[in-house]
């Protein structure tokens, strides 16, 4: 359903693209984790696929249509995003935030129909945010806000959901819960979910497929097992201080590395 054809992403002003020649496709129901260190181009890649930023070459197609040339309204009905950018909004209540996801589907007044209300109720129930539905979005904790923003993305009933570091403010049980829940959503609704995360363990366990950015322009795709066994995960993340152990599937702190300053 999602096809990237020799896609190059980055900022025109920066000269060379961050990533180029990306060839990958994803099927409906795929739960894909994008892994890579800070600055490796995860967010740029996701914004480009979402059509929020022009590509530097190649195309991203969703259901055969070039995302970059879709009409904004059409794109909004097919792709939902959740970004690291803080949503700041005076006077918005939680239910307003979630309801805004239905804007691409409503008329000029933005009046919600039965289908819209059902989608909102569904997303609210799935994310368990019913208890603070009437509260102001600004008064929520970081973790609660992230749940609301995930619910907002779900309520947009997209074919492709792009979620950038959405679990950053959550504790471990909540992270596991939300990622497992998104995986189930992808399967049930036949959506493609692209999720970037710093949670390597969790991503490698839950993803159908991993897109790995090594920070030097390299891009590898594969099943989590294959990528960790081939040493690709290690190449992307190893430093003097930590090493990825393919046999154990986790990082080990290297004792011979540089010592913390005393």
């Amino acid at each position, binding site marked *: 359903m999602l096809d990237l054809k020799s896609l190059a992403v980055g900022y025109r002003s920066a000269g060379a693209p961050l990533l180029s020649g990306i060839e990958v496709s994803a099927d409906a129901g795929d739960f894909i984790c994008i892994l890579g260190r800070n600055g490796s181009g995860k967010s740029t890649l996701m914004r480009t696929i*979402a059509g*929020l930023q022009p590509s530097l070459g190649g195309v991203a197609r969703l259901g055969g249509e070039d995302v970059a040339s879709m*009409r*904004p*309204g*059409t*794109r*909004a*009905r097919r*792709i*939902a*995003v959740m*970004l690291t*950018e*803080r*949503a*700041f*909004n*005076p*006077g*918005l*209540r939680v239910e*307003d*935030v979630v309801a*805004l*996801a239905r*804007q*691409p589907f*409503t008329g*000029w*007044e*933005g009046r919600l129909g039965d289908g819209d209300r059902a989608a909102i109720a569904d997303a609210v129930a799935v994310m368990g945010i019913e208890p603070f539905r009437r509260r*102001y979005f*600004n*008064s929520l904790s970081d973790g609660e806000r992230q749940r609301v923003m995930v619910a907002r993305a779900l309520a*947009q009933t997209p074919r492709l959901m792009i979620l950038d570091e959405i679990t950053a403010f959550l504790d471990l049980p909540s992270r596991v819960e939300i990622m497992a829940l998104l995986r189930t959503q992808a399967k049930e609704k036949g959506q493609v979910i692209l999720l970037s995360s710093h949670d390597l363990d969790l991503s490698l366990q839950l993803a159908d497929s991993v897109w790995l950015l090594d920070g030097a322009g390299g891009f590898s795709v594969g099943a989590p097992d294959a990528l960790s066994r081939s040493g690709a995960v290690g190449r992307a993340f190893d430093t003097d201080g930590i090493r990825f152990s393919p046999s154990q599937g986790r990082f080990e702190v290297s004792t011979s590395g540089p010592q913390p300053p005393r």
Partner: protein
Amino acid sequence: MRVRTSSAALIAALAAVSLLTLTYGQIALPLADTLGALTGTQSSDLARQIVLEIRLPRVAAAIIAGGALGMAGVLMQALFRNPVADAWSLGLLAGGQFGVALTVTAAAFAGPAAVSFLTIFEGPSITLAAAAGVAVAAVFMLALGRRVGAITLLVIGLMLGFTSQGLTSVLLHFAARAGGRVYGGWQDASFAAIAPASLPWLLAPIVIGAAAAVATAKPLSSLLLGETYARSLGVRVTSLRHAVLAATVLLVAPVVAFCGPVSFVGLIAPHFARALAGTARILLLLPLAALGGALLAVAGDAIVHAPWEQHFLHLNNILAILGAPVVILILIFSPAVRQWR
């Protein structure tokens, strides 16, 4: 539902206060005479003259201007994502005033022909001059708003307001010396100065501005989430900004031109509207903020024109007493403001 109930309550309150200020003043009329004059049935000539020719234009101007400022406040608070934004607090009204002062001064120095041109085409020319000033101030503040926080922007807006009010009074001083005696006493906000013939010039741009506000309401609601989210919801953000700015200028410029720098109404009406509506959806806030702004303006005007022993109270002083404490509460308690620290 809440919007309908609140609107009905506000309309009732607005009608009551309007009727009160149409009836009581330096000369108190029997209520029956006021109603008679308004409906065109039996009434004395004196009552008809007082109600229809003196008081009604003033009340109409207050309703129209207050409503326009309330709607403009809703637009600006969403556009700037700033709970203390409004045409007055961010210096748009002062910018408009300065635009008018420049035009009047230029005409005064250009000679009597220019002055009489300005006098004959008073309505459109001062509205246009005000619109230019408002637009320049709005574009400047919008650019600045992307660099500084909400409170800094408020302070800068107020300072710009002081600056351009100072410049306006200096300009008008020289304009008067050059022979243009136009608009000398116009620096203070007042709904009483408008000539009945000018009411259409006040109303027409505001009606267009209100229609534009309604048309931009839905995409503007999604801008509350931030620019990127708005784009992801299919909003063309740049054209939306232009449309909202245009609507704001249409709503605000005629108010500056005919009523002066009316303070606080546009700032606090949106907050009342949000509290009444229980939502931040722009389309629902617009009518409530318009009615709330109109109510506040008429109430302020009623206090100014109550039969006091000595005259005159100034409209902006009354509005400050009503409005400033509300703004202080917003600054202390609004979670949206606290976030910016």
